[in-house]
């Protein structure tokens, strides 16, 4: 029978990362993935990733996917696509459907990196055509180039709901509302803010009453819920939409592990049914390892590190590295993973309401309730300062593990310091040269270059812009506030696109100077 040192199921961020580490150490590795394209969720992620350099921060997900694939190729990993693992049998036998055949393989070790599946939520009409998962929306628009709908209501304010809402707008859909039954936005504030500033209303403590339509979705009614998630009569709101997108969390796709006989547990903290395993992915069955979302829902960045860990551990299991080498490598990876698992969104903080930043600053209430920081709240954050001339305004208000802005500024204007989750600060006496690198490098699109007083009663605001059509210089329109409402007239004075910006265009708009700290988006009229 075909035998490999290591068989990996799933060519997503963790599976590929594991494959690279294992193959680098001399193992014969094959990766099977049921999809036509590798990369798992990475190929649907078109935003720039958070983290630091070692986490491939500010690189877009699909580019990371390609990088991993190239690396895997270089070290001789065999990646087999359109290959559906249909069963994991005894004695580590993996049966794979490839084309019109089923092929039997044996692995001396196996890493299951099958990722996660979307959770669902029920409401009358949830089976109508037009009600889709957020993953489906991403697949259609980012892989197949087809718009999921024209007018979309998004349910779920976690990172998936926020990111997918933004992606929907990027491909030309209108997002009419972002709804969540929870009382607070669940995902990163910066993801919320970039959606809110385009004018998408957030309805927290709201959920779907029903989807309407006979043969397909034609509308949706939402209503407010009380603290026990019961509808409050009289709070119904109706939207005409053709699509309802559900982003209500993920569950580990761990069926293969259960099939293999691994000990399992239902662990709500890790997102559901997961194998019992140690921190490096060793399951109850010797030689079967796990990595990524299948062992607990986290971000793709963490999945990559977990994958590397599992790859190293598998290498040691089969004698390709000595235990000491493994320990040394794992301690480096431990640190990298630890870096990602910090801040207010760390797994350990899941479900906790955090009122203050690590710096002791009150978290913006508006951000949690409506998706944007209020004009009266923004000034209290350290990245928001006032200066003569162009200077960065960093509307980064939550402790998340991310620091590309610090490296982006060659003039040393921005500092995060050793603690990756700290809020960025503007360095005293530094001189901004208006290069725009900070704006383009901020994965959260939270940095603006502002000249608060151009001397003629106007101010300029340079903002990140990732939509089409790209406004032209001279175009007149409106400046939108952080809440997406029109606040003033605005005119585009500069549009910069550069390779180094990686598809984030820099739009500079001129606004009346009293709106320098208010206008954060441009809408052509």
């Amino acid at each position, binding site marked *: 029978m075909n035998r490999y040192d290591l068989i990996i199921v799933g060519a997503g961020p963790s599976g590929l990362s594991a494959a690279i580490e294992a193959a680098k150490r001399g193992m014969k590795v094959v990766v099977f993935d049921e999809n036509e394209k590798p990369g798992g969720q990475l190929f649907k992620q078109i935003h720039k990733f958070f983290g630091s350099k070692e986490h491939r921060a500010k690189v877009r997900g699909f580019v990371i996917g390609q990088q991993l694939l190239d690396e895997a190729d270089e070290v001789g990993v065999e990646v087999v696509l359109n290959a559906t693992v249909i069963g994991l049998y005894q004695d580590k036998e993996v049966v794979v459907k490839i084309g019109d055949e*089923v*092929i039997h393989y044996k692995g001396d070790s196996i890493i299951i990196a099958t990722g996660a599946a979307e959770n669902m939520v*029920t409401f009358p009409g949830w089976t109508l055509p037009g009600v889709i998962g957020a993953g489906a929306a991403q697949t259609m628009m980012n892989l197949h180039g087809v718009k999921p709908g024209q007018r979309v209501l998004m349910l779920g304010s976690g990172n998936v709901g926020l990111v997918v809402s933004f992606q929907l707008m990027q491909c030309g859909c209108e997002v009419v509302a972002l709804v969540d039954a929870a009382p607070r936005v669940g995902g990163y504030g910066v993801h919320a803010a970039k959606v809110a500033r385009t004018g998408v209303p957030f309805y927290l403590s709201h959920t779907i009453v029903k989807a309407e339509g006979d043969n397909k979705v034609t509308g949706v009614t939402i209503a407010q819920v009380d603290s026990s998630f019961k509808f409050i009569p009289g709070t119904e709101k109706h939207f005409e939409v053709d699509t309802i997108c559900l982003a209500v969390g993920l569950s580990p796709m761990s069926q293969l592990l*259960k099939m293999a006989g691994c000990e399992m547990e*239902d662990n709500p903290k890790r997102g*559901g*049914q997961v194998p019992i395993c140690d921190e490096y992915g060793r399951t109850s069955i010797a030689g079967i390892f796990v990595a990524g979302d299948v062992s607990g829902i986290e971000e793709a960045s963490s999945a990559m590190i977990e994958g590397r860990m599992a790859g190293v551990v598998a290498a040691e299991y089969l004698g390709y590295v000595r235990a000491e080498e493994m320990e040394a490598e794992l301690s480096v990876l431990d640190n990298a993973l630890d870096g990602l698992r910090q801040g207010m969104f760390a797994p350990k903080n899941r479900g906790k309401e955090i009122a203050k930043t690590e710096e002791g600053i009150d978290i913006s209430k508006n951000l949690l309730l409506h998706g944007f920081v209020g004009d009266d709240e923004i000034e209290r954050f350290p990245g928001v300062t006032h200066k003569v001339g162009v200077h960065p305004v960093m509307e980064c208000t939550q402790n998340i593990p991310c620091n590309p802005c610090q490296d982006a500024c060659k003039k040393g204007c921005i500092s995060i310091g050793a603690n990756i989750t700290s809020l960025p600060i503007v360095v005293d006496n530094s001189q901004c040269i208006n290069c725009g690198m900070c704006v383009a490098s901020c994965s959260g699109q939270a940095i603006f270059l502002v000249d608060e007083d151009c001397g003629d009663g106007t101010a300029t605001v340079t903002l990140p812009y990732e939509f089409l059509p790209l406004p032209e210089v001279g175009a007149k329109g409106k400046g939108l506030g952080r809440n997406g409402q029109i606040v003033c007239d605005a005119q585009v004075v500069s549009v910069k696109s550069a390779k180094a910006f990686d598809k984030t265009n820099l739009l500079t708009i001129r606004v009346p100077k009293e709106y320098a700290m208010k206008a954060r988006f441009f809408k052509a009229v």
Partner: protein
Amino acid sequence: MNSINDRSRDIGEFKSMPDDDMLICRCEEITKGEIRKAVHDGMWTLTEIRRYLRTGMGLCQGQTCSKLVKGIVARELGISPAELEPATSRVPMRPIEMKVFANEAEKLKEAN
């Protein structure tokens, strides 16, 4: 994992609820009310529910509804969903044509 489960424990009477007609298992078109009723008929494990009603026995094999069913059954029994063992996972993980399943091979025809 065997845990003692006395099926004569009182879980109260079945009471109908306004959302009993909500479809839960999309493939087999099983409603919340049917699931709740099955619990009162004595189906106290997800495996029994599945065998009794066909929830999760359709084309998708429970990949969409299993978490929803788990929540409903747990609530009806007055226990935490974590106490309910999910139904067994079985080969094949995805539907596979008989002619393909029958066509066993030792090696890949060509490099993919």
